[in-house]
């Protein structure tokens, strides 16, 4: 560790990664009021895990975000989105018509948008990390001089 050439990178990344992940959740839940939403938040959360993987190695990243979560997350997101539509259907409205989800239409819309954005968030995060894991696991380790 004495001769670790990336000590600065590691220290700064350790400070930044939690902030990036927190910002992702801010973008997710503040999407109704400011710019952002499920898609952007998902990409930002995935970017924080990809950054962790770049700095600390793929094996550590796979411990922080286990690959089993990917399969669950990406299907859960689509199910959550489609399920919201089906629930609205069951309640007597059209598919994805959120107005019937709560006692009044505006509340129903709020609930619907929240659920749908959560679904987008799950799928986008999982798929982005899945693509990175799939590509990142393929390549052999690159030596320092090779760059």
């Amino acid at each position, binding site marked *: 560790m004495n001769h670790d050439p990336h000590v600065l990178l590691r220290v700064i990344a350790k400070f930044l990664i939690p902030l990036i992940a927190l910002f992702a959740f801010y*973008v997710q839940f503040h*999407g*109704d*009021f*400011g*710019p*952002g*939403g499920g*898609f*952007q938040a998902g*990409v*930002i959360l*995935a*970017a924080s895990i*990809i950054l962790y993987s*770049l700095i*600390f*190695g793929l*094996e*550590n990243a796979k411990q922080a975000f286990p*690959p089993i979560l*990917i399969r669950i997350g*990406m*299907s859960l*997101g*689509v199910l959550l*989105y*489609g399920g919201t*539509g089906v629930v609205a259907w069951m309640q007597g409205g059209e598919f*994805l018509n*959120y*107005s019937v989800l709560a006692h009044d*239409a*505006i509340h129903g*819309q*709020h609930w*619907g*948008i929240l659920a*749908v*954005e959560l679904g*987008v968030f799950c*799928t*986008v995060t999982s*798929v*982005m990390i*899945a*693509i*990175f*894991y*799939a*590509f*990142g*696991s*393929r*390549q*052999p*380790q*690159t030596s320092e001089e*090779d*760059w």
Partner: protein
Amino acid sequence: MIANIIGAVPTSPLISTLLLDIGLLTLLVMVAFAIVRMRSLFAIVMLQGVYSLVAAAWFVTLDAVDVAFTEAAVGAGVSTVLMLAAMLLADRESTPVPMSRQWGPLAVVLIAGMAMLYAVPDLPSYGDANSPANSYVGTDYLARTAVEIDVPNVVTAVLASYRGYDTFGEVVVIFAAGLGVLLLLGLDGNAGRFRAQVMGRKLSDTSAPTGSTDKTASTSQRRKSSGGGGGKSSLGAPPSITRYEGGAS
């Protein structure tokens, strides 16, 4: 066109915005030319990230903050990393194409560019109140969001509620993309257990084919494989095989 825009609204902030737009677009063109003229793929990937960041800044000046957000996160962040990962599997330098093979692409680019320039006068001018984006269904969404959905960000309301079907389709597309990657590459890539049958010969399970220029590893691997499989097998070997070292750096 430009004189038209400035003449329409004579306030000074718009002129400064226009200057900013022109500056950012000039930067974009410069970065694009730099990308075309580069040979080092690493520098090209980095410049593509720069291009996305400048484009995101330009989207902010156009008040398309949601688009700028996505461009910065996807274009400059995730796709740069994915391009880097793809580059590591291929070569580090692009081979120059001889001039004789570039006349066809040049003709295509010139014709397409002239067609686009021909279409420019038909575009609505910047900030035109009667443009298709500012009339028809767009104004309808703006007027109804406050009453029907009561969400300050109209983009979210349109995306998740009025256009819920479209967004559902997008999510399914992303899901399908992830599914395709998982089916083709697997979650662990081929790290540590690469298996393939090339011309009837089983490749070893600790190596994955790459385009890396690590000649010593590839020749030693190839020698080893040709020893086992007879004279024909050297034909079936991938361009180069580098040993996977495993573990984190």
